[in-house]
């Protein structure tokens, strides 16, 4: 069997492209070899990537692709024949495809009608030629995030391509890609030099030898493991815990190196007086260093990954250069952070609160100071609905005024990701209570940290977060700036999802429609808003997020729709309980029979647009009397159960209606001639239907 080698050398690619290339390119090649040229045996395709090179190795290729048949479509049958022999359009098709015998053409049903078709035999071709002819298309097909051109507008890649190696069975298999002519040479660093030298390659083993001789680790996964192991053993050496990091962070470092070289450096201990969170952000974000700590407290060491492969003779001097360089550059960054931190410490939170009057939240929505005023009022309303104790209320009054003050501090201006965290630190330092300080940080929650989603840890933080996020969403509803399409410049979807996650996590029973009514009654009154229209927009926006949240939680569309079409108050926690109940008990007999009854009623009532209540005196048949009695008792028992959220008991109670309703249908003609009796019967049925809707629209369930 044959082997094919492809290497694309380029200027350093962004790390997420490095990460993405192997799977994407493998997919493209696999599709071509297995589905397009139909190789009988699946070849073995491996793709490696570093910032400077993408390498493909295909093993197990035949020399020639097999002959194959392809169905080609000709003109529509209707215009193809004249008196049983081919007419002009078909003749043309035959000529073009070198078809001599028209009897081999057959009709084929297509979407647009019946067409002529022919099984064309395609001769096998040398795989080498097929590859070189198609590789340029494949390179263009890789779904990069961003590409550029350097000479030819049609030739794009994330950075300029510098060389391409293409070898089939040890021999040059050349093709052109824009300004690049492929060859059988790769480029690696010269020993003891940054200069690249070209090396002739004759096969995969030869290639791997050449590349690894310069310390390059070709495979992303291998580089990542190598780095992680290096960091681990180095951390141990300085008695630090293995650092925590997000996948993205380690992937970035993996994608930034070809010849990774983990190293430990230090910085001046005096910086440890600056909050550890801030130092860590500086290290991670600005320098891609791993902050090191022991038992949660930061050490004056950090781990880093250089991209070098030093010869033994210069190893020590190179290491010293790197250590001193890294420490120096970090010191400069830390000094900057320390400067801002010290500047901020000259002032107290009330000063910054005052400053937030000058920071606009958004055109037409006032300053951040005004935002916190709205948050304050809104939160008190929400706290009332949730029956929060007065302790939380008084803490909330303090906290709400402090939620945004850190936006006016130097540290947050320079390091926006420190918002909330600095607020907590500064508030703590000026003797605010731990709960209030924490709420300042946690009002930005839910957030994701080291692969986990974190929600506000207590009711005060949750209240702050809900009030802030709802103010944001509702104020942009007022401006009619809800996101459309992909983009969400004000992060409104994220805010709404945050609200939903908190409400469900904390099991808050609150009607978002009440919150909306309160909001537009209370704020922006001078603008003469169309509150109904805004409410519709808000509720739609909220429900769509809620539905998506439920779908991603594994609930079925019919369960969600059944509950939500009958629910208009925006009590998401109650809805969740109902949906959860349905997901567990949908297949049980009670639910099934209730849904049958529901449909039976609905089949009659939906034909009448207006149905009034019912007059008991007109309903005197025994089935009617029985149904009314049962209905009254069920209502009496089920309403408190629905209110308290005990849906299992409520549905059990509702189930008592099944037999009386069926009895009613069996014994009574609903649509009688007597108008008043008919109306009362319809009225009774409709009342039952409306009552059942308090749980859900049973007709929407897929049973």
């Amino acid at each position: 069997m044959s082997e094919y080698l492809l290497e694309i050398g380029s200027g350093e690619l962004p790390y997420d492209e490095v990460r993405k290339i192997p799977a994407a390119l493998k997919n493209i090649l696999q599709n071509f070899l297995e589905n397009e040229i139909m190789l009988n045996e699946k070849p073995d395709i491996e793709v490696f990537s570093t910032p400077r090179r993408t390498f493909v190795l295909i093993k197990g290729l035949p020399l020639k692709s097999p002959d194959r048949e392809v169905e080609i479509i000709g003109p529509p049958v209707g215009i193809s024949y004249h008196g049983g022999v081919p007419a002009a359009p078909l003749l043309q098709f035959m000529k073009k495809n070198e078809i001599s015998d028209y009897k081999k053409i057959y009709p084929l049903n297509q979407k647009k009608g019946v067409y002529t078709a022919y099984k064309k035999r395609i001769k096998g071709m040398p795989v080498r030629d097929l590859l070189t002819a198609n590789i340029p298309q494949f390179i263009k097909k890789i779904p990069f995030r961003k590409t550029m051109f350097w000479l030819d507008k049609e030739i794009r890649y994330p950075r300029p391509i510098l060389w391409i190696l293409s070898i089939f069975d040890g021999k040059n298999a050349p093709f052109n890609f824009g300004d690049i002519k492929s060859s059988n040479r790769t480029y690696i660093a010269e020993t003891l030099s940054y200069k690249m030298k070209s090396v002739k390659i004759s096969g995969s083993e030869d290639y791997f030898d050449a590349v690894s001789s310069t310390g390059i680790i070709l495979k992303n996964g291998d580089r990542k493991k190598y780095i992680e192991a290096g960091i681990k053993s180095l951390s141990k050496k300085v008695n630090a815990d293995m650092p925590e990091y997000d996948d993205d962070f380690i992937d970035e470092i993996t994608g930034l190196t070809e010849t990774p070289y983990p190293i430990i450096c230090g910085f001046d201990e005096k910086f440890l007086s600056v909050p550890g969170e801030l130092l860590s952000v500086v290290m991670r974000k600005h320098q891609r260093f791993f902050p090191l700590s022991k038992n949660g407290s930061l050490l004056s060491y950090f781990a880093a990954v250089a991209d070098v492969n030093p010869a033994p003779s210069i190893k020590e001097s190179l290491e010293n250069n790197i250590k001193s360089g890294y420490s120096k550059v970090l010191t400069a960054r830390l000094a900057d952070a320390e400067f801002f931190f010290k500047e901020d410490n000259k002032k107290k939170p009330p000063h910054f609160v005052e400053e937030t009057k000058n920071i606009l939240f958004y055109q037409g929505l006032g300053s951040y100071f005004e935002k916190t005023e709205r948050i304050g009022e809104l939160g008190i309303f929400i706290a009332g609905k949730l029956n929060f104790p007065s302790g939380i209320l008084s803490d909330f009054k303090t906290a709400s005024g402090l939620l945004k003050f850190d936006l006016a501090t130097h540290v947050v201006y320079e390091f926006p990701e420190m918002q909330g965290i600095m607020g907590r630190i500064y508030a703590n330092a000026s003797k605010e209570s731990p709960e209030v300080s924490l709420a300042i940080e946690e009002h930005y929650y839910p957030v994701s940290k080291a692969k986990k989603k974190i929600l506000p840890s207590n009711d005060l933080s949750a209240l702050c977060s809900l009030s802030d996020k709802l103010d944001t969403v509702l104020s942009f509803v007022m401006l009619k700036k809800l996101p459309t399409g992909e983009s969400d410049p004000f992060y409104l979807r994220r805010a709404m999802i945050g609200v939903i996650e908190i409400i469900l996590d904390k099991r808050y029973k609150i009607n978002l429609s009440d919150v909306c009514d309160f909001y537009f009654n209370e704020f922006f009154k001078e603008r003469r808003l169309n509150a109904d229209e805004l409410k519709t927009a808000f509720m739609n926006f909220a429900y769509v997020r809620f539905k998506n949240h439920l779908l991603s939680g594994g609930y079925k569309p019919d369960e969600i729709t059944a509950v939500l079409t009958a629910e208009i108050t925006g009590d998401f926690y109650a809805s969740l309980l109902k949906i959860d109940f349905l997901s567990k008990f949908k297949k049980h007999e009670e639910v099934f029979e209730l849904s049958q009854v529901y449909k039976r009623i609905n089949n009659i009532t939906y034909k009448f647009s207006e149905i009034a209540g019912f007059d008991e005196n007109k309903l005197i048949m025994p089935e009617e009397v029985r149904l009314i009695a049962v209905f009254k008792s069920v209502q009496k028992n089920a309403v408190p159960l629905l209110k308290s959220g005990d849906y299992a008991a409520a549905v059990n109670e509702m189930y008592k209606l099944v037999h009386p309703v069926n009895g009613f249908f069996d014994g009574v003609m609903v649509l009688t001639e007597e108008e008043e009796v008919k109306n009362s019967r319809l009225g009774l049925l409709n009342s039952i239907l409306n009552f059942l809707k308090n749980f859900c629209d049973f007709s929407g369930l897929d049973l």
Partner: protein
Amino acid sequence: MGAATFAPYTFLKCLDCGEWRAAYVQPSRRPTDGRYGQNPNRLGRYYQFQVVIQPYISRIQEIYLDSLKSISINPNEHDIRFVEDDWESPTLGAWGLGWEVWLDGMEVTQFTYFQQIGGVELSKPAIEITYGLERIAMFLQNKDSVFDLQWNDSFKYGDIHKDDELQFSKYSFEYADGEILHKLFNLYEAESTKLLSFKLKELVKPAYEYCLKCSHAFNMLDARGLISVSERMNFILKVRALAEGCARLYTGYGDKD
């Protein structure tokens, strides 16, 4: 101006899309970066050494490393990295892909393949290499503070520039008058707009100069903390409209409209 890219020798010249190879020192100002001369690494005014090459040449990364070697930074003895940095100037309507170059962790150069300037896609991308002179000098002279750099045998960087830093930080952060800056911005904008309205190619450079003044006034307002997130976008769009107007006038792009 805010950076060497803003100079007409890059912004306008690259729009010619011919053979343009230039190198110049550009004193640049970034008022928000001022630190009263107290921070050894941050300056509100600093020097960039700008290299512009058009069209593309493929060996440019190696030539760049040669340039470091020629000022006695031997790339073999250091960790030199080309780290993704997609450069975009919303105010100039310009973007390109490229890197920041790290020398043992310190960013010493911005390296960009320009794709678009002033909203106009270049028919031949230009390579821009912007060296941070202070940082490179600190590296070479092994100084921890920019102000300790030996300017020549008799003067240090601090002797010449430390007081500038103090005075302009004080001004930008404390005394700059928001109302006046707003007025200046509007005046500059009006003058640039008026010059552009004549549609005379021989007025494009003055129009562009007023566009740069607008940009500076905007930077000053920003440093003073007088621009909110949302207002910022409006200012940027205003400056960008001027920059794009200049680019269109200069290239004759869209003349037929």
